[in-house]
């Protein structure tokens, strides 16, 4: 049974966090669930950002108040100041939610913290991420974390915080904090309720075309301007490797590290019984890569895949 090698992006990601997402068009896409470390990192960045925003706002207000009083304008009534403070308290209460909502409802579906660590929110069923879902997951964040901490702080300030209440608050927050570690999709309770999950945000850069050698056969007619290739490999020389080795070779060629190329060229030469092309590894590897890929892709067109050298 021929088996395809796992190509590309999924290299270097914990296999336990790999998932497949099927678009409504029926194309399967590989997504990776964001690891817990990225989640907690994003949370701390967000908390710092929120703290900075509130601090900046309060400092601006203080500056305005100072400017107002030093300008010698008539004093404002207590009632009006009270009113402003009430507005401020409401604003503080809503700012937190507004921050998360505003950014997660944006096109990137990620707060500053999530952007910084390269993750985003997505709908678990592959459909559209709705505003209701974003609301739900952020409302639950309040219940999981902010509100217990707030009640504990205000209780502590007023001196009405009993030891029992403090411990139950800590346990409450603790349970919700470790909850993502206890399920395979790293879902927070809010994600569970909202039908969302947090995945790695994809990044894409297109590398240059790697094939530069001349494929055996037809290619010579297609590209007469290319100089005749010094390296030609027979079928027996190409049949020793499969897709996995091809893609490793591709990586070596893309990074173009001379030491690595020398080692790889020596390995290939030892395997196929040629003498090492000292000083000309690049050309050798280019040619070998191109001809190996031409051979494997021809097999592919006939439905024959070869995952690696052992298959």
């Amino acid at each position: 049974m021929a088996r395809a090698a796992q190509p590309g992006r999924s290299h270097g990601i914990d296999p336990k966090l790999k998932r497949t997402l099927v678009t409504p068009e029926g194309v399967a896409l590989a997504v990776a669930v964001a690891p817990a470390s990225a989640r907690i990192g994003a949370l701390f960045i967000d908390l710092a950002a929120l703290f900075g925003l509130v601090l900046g706002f309060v400092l601006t207000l203080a500056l305005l108040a100072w400017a107002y009083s030093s300008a010698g304008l008539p004093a404002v009534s207590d009632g009006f100041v009270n009113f402003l403070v009430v507005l401020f308290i409401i604003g503080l209460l809503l700012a937190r939610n507004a921050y998360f909502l505003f950014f997660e409802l944006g096109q990137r579906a990620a707060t500053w913290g999530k952007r910084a660590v390269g993750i985003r929110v997505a709908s678990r069923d592959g459909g559209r991420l709705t505003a209701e879902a974003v609301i739900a997951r952020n409302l639950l964040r309040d219940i999981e974390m902010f509100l217990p901490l707030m009640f504990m702080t205000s209780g502590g300030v007023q001196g009405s915080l009993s030891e029992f209440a403090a411990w139950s608050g800590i346990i409450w927050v603790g349970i919700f904090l470790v909850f993502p570690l206890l399920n395979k999709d790293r879902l927070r309770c809010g994600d569970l309720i909202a039908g969302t999950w947090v995945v790695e945000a994809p990044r894409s850069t297109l590398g240059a075309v790697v094939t530069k050698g001349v494929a055996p056969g037809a290619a010579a007619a297609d590209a007469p301007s290319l100089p005749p290739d010094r390296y030609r490999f027979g079928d027996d020389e190409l049949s020793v490797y499969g897709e996995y080795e091809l893609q490793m070779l591709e990586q070596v060629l893309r990074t173009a590290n001379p030491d690595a190329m020398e080692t790889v060229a020596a390995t290939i030469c030892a395997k196929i019984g040629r003498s090492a092309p000292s000083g000309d590894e690049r050309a050798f590897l280019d040619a070998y890569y191109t001809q190996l890929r031409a051979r494997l892709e021809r097999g592919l067109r006939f439905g024959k895949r070869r995952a690696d050298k052992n298959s």
Partner: protein
Amino acid sequence: MNGQVTNPGGEQAVAAAVLRSDRFRLEREADWVRLDGMITAMEKGRLKRLADDDVMALPVLYRNLLSSLSIARESSLDAGLIAYLESLTLRAYFIVYGTRTTFGGWCRSFFGGALSRSVRAIGFDIVVALAAMVIGAVLGFMLVDADPQWFYRLVPAQFSDVRVPGASREALAGTLFGKQDGEGLSVFAAYLFNNNAQVAILAFALGFAFGVPTVLLLIYNTATLGAMLWVFASRGLTVEFVGWLSIHGTTELLAILLAGAAGLHIGRALGFPGKRSHLAALSQSGRTAAQVMTGVIVMLICAGLLEGFARQLVQATEVRYAIGYGILALWLAYFFAFRPRRS
């Protein structure tokens, strides 16, 4: 061998490409790069700066990208290319199937009908929660009526300063009229971070345990209310007490009722998911409940303002009734009679 491919999509480059899969790539690369640029712009929120042609071309480019990816997977062994196409497709997919609403747009739709719809959607749970609250209040009243000692078990110490069984009529009336708790501001602040806001949020959060703790919490809290009512009723202050309570209590009790109902809604979905999977049932009910809870938070802020300011300013019982039940009527009309057509 320095035959660099510098002009993607150009005839020369396509002709120079050695492999069929590379020709496939070079013929389509310009489209991918164009889509890539558009997606990058949209991710940065610069949708309006895109040319009309680009916006019109987006669906076509997206479909072409999907088919390119499918073909590349079956015909190309260029891992770099497939990785690029996969991540570009995922990005495009997130854009094409991304959120359609902005924050402002959501606010409009939320207050312009979505909240009311969600409240109506949990009608059954509201009835159950209301029953629990009524039973609690009656229970509290009857228990204290049977044995005043129950009062001390039901009412937390912080409330039972002078409001205890056997207190004089004057002392009780004093708690209903005149300034007692200092300024409106501190009352407001204390309110938001204290008892009743906590009760509402707990009632919702405990819904996860199949709703049972929610019902108990609702019964217990209204039992406190019933006990308090008995104390005032025993001195003939029922009407005044209800007026004092109503000015903010109608909003607050309605908020607690809705929060409890939202919790029950989730608990019920967990316990009886029907033909859906537990997770699907949970997320479906969770979204509705979260909408209701957002409304509850708005209501609690209103209740805090009413308790902090209106109750101090308005001392006449009739006006307190008018305000309290006027606002209640407004809430009910908004939730149940306000049915704008879905846009």
